[in-house]
């Protein structure tokens, strides 16, 4: 696949121009491998049959030229030059039987593989980019409809909820007012009944509050209703002539006592 990447037409002039271009464009190469691949094209053979020895010579010559032109070469170009010089000597000298490392041929074959692989990747990259591309040659739907997320809320209630709800209303309406109010309300009759029994023992002035039954004395609601009932009852008893009432001044305690029997 490598052979179709460059033209067959070539002259020594063109080769020289190309070589000069290489020097000028050193900054355009993406590293030594890229440069080596460009140099390899001048050999005009399948990369599998490339002479690595020749390539090494070309590269080293390039580096020499670059030095002569005082071009700043990146370190990896010099590292590659050193490695290729080593490879060249290995390829030229007969193999040393004591050497444990890889042979010059193995190293050369690997470099050839790397070049061929890079070349192959460039070719397929070009083929990939030449394909019909979405948004350039092939098009997706222009008017899209989003899937709308419809949130549907359903409400639930159980029969129990329903009955409890009804019970709640019914309890509130029917029972509370009667049951609760009876419990916390003292009538005048109740107080009168109570006082008729107690008044016989009240010879001295006594605060009316002391007549309240102890169980009605603590809760303010009950205390208020009991106080009112006892006051009303005491007025009734005074009217009947059973007791006397006195109050020193406004808001001061109200005292009652049994009315002393008069001569009839």
């Amino acid at each position, binding site marked *: 696949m490598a052979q179709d990447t460059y033209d067959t037409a070539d002259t020594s002039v063109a080769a020289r121009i190309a070589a000069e271009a290489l020097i000028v464009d050193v900054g355009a190469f993406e590293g030594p491998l890229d440069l080596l691949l460009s140099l390899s094209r001048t050999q005009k053979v399948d990369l599998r049959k490339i002479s690595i020895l020749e390539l090494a010579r070309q590269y080293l010559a390039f580096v020499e030229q670059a030095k002569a032109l005082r071009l700043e070469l990146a370190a990896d170009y010099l590292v590659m030059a050193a490695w290729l010089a080593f490879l060249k000597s290995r390829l030229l000298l007969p193999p040393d039987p004591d050497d444990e490392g890889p042979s010059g041929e193995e190293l050369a074959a690997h470099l050839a593989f790397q070049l061929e692989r890079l070349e192959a990747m460039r070719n397929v990259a070009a083929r990939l980019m030449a394909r019909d591309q979405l948004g350039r040659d092939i098009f997706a739907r222009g008017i899209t409809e989003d899937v709308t997320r419809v949130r549907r*809320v359903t*409400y639930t*209630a159980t029969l129990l909820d329903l009955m409890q709800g009804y019970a709640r209303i019914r309890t509130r309406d029917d029972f509370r007012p009667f049951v609760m109010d009876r419990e916390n309300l003292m009538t005048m009759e109740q107080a009168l009944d109570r006082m008729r029994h107690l008044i016989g023992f009240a010879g001295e002035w006594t605060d009316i509050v002391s007549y309240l039954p102890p169980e009605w004395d603590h809760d303010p609601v009950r205390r208020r209703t009991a106080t009112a009932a006892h006051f009303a009852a005491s007025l009734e008893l005074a009217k009947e002539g059973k007791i006397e009432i006195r109050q020193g001044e406004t808001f001061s305690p109200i005292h009652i006592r049994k009315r002393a029997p008069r001569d009839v």
Partner: protein
Amino acid sequence: MSEPRDSLFEAPPMADQERMVEAILFATADPVTVPQLAGRMPHGCDPATALARVRIHYEGRGVTLQRIGDAWAFRTAPDLGFLMQHEVVETRKLSRAAIETLAIVAYHQPATRAEIEEIRGVSVSRGTLDQLIELDWIRLGRRRMSPGRPVTFIVTRHFLDHFGLESARDLPGLKELRAAGLLDSRPPPGTEDEEAEATQDDLFEDDA
């Protein structure tokens, strides 16, 4: 079909023109007019005819060619609109106000709004009744033959189905609610209870 305007270039076959219209309408982000089609297709094409043929080709398919003003676009077939919706169902508990309103309608139907308010002791929002109507749990009953002819509310068949009741008469009475521990178990003053029971059974007079 129009006369070929330019004899120098042969217009593409109609089948190809059809493909072109199809592709343009598919890929363009807005509906496309016939002049716009003509402007994009090769010289000598007849977009109106091609459009008509595309329209026929898509008849009865999942997408159809639709006219929007003077332009054309592919649109999902109306009967398949449901595919474009992903329904998320969220279940929520009915509010206390709604449950109480529903309960009052169920136990006292037909009930006017004023009656519901009287029983609940608070005003009933329009939204609560609307929600219950939307849920198809209550509906409007006959108008009450009283001054102002107020509308009444009654429960629906759907309500009975949802709550597993044969009829609204199957709703437990106060005594049963109490027995079930749903009401305060304190013995209430007898008369009050009788009264409540009586009004509640208005509708269900044939109840045993």
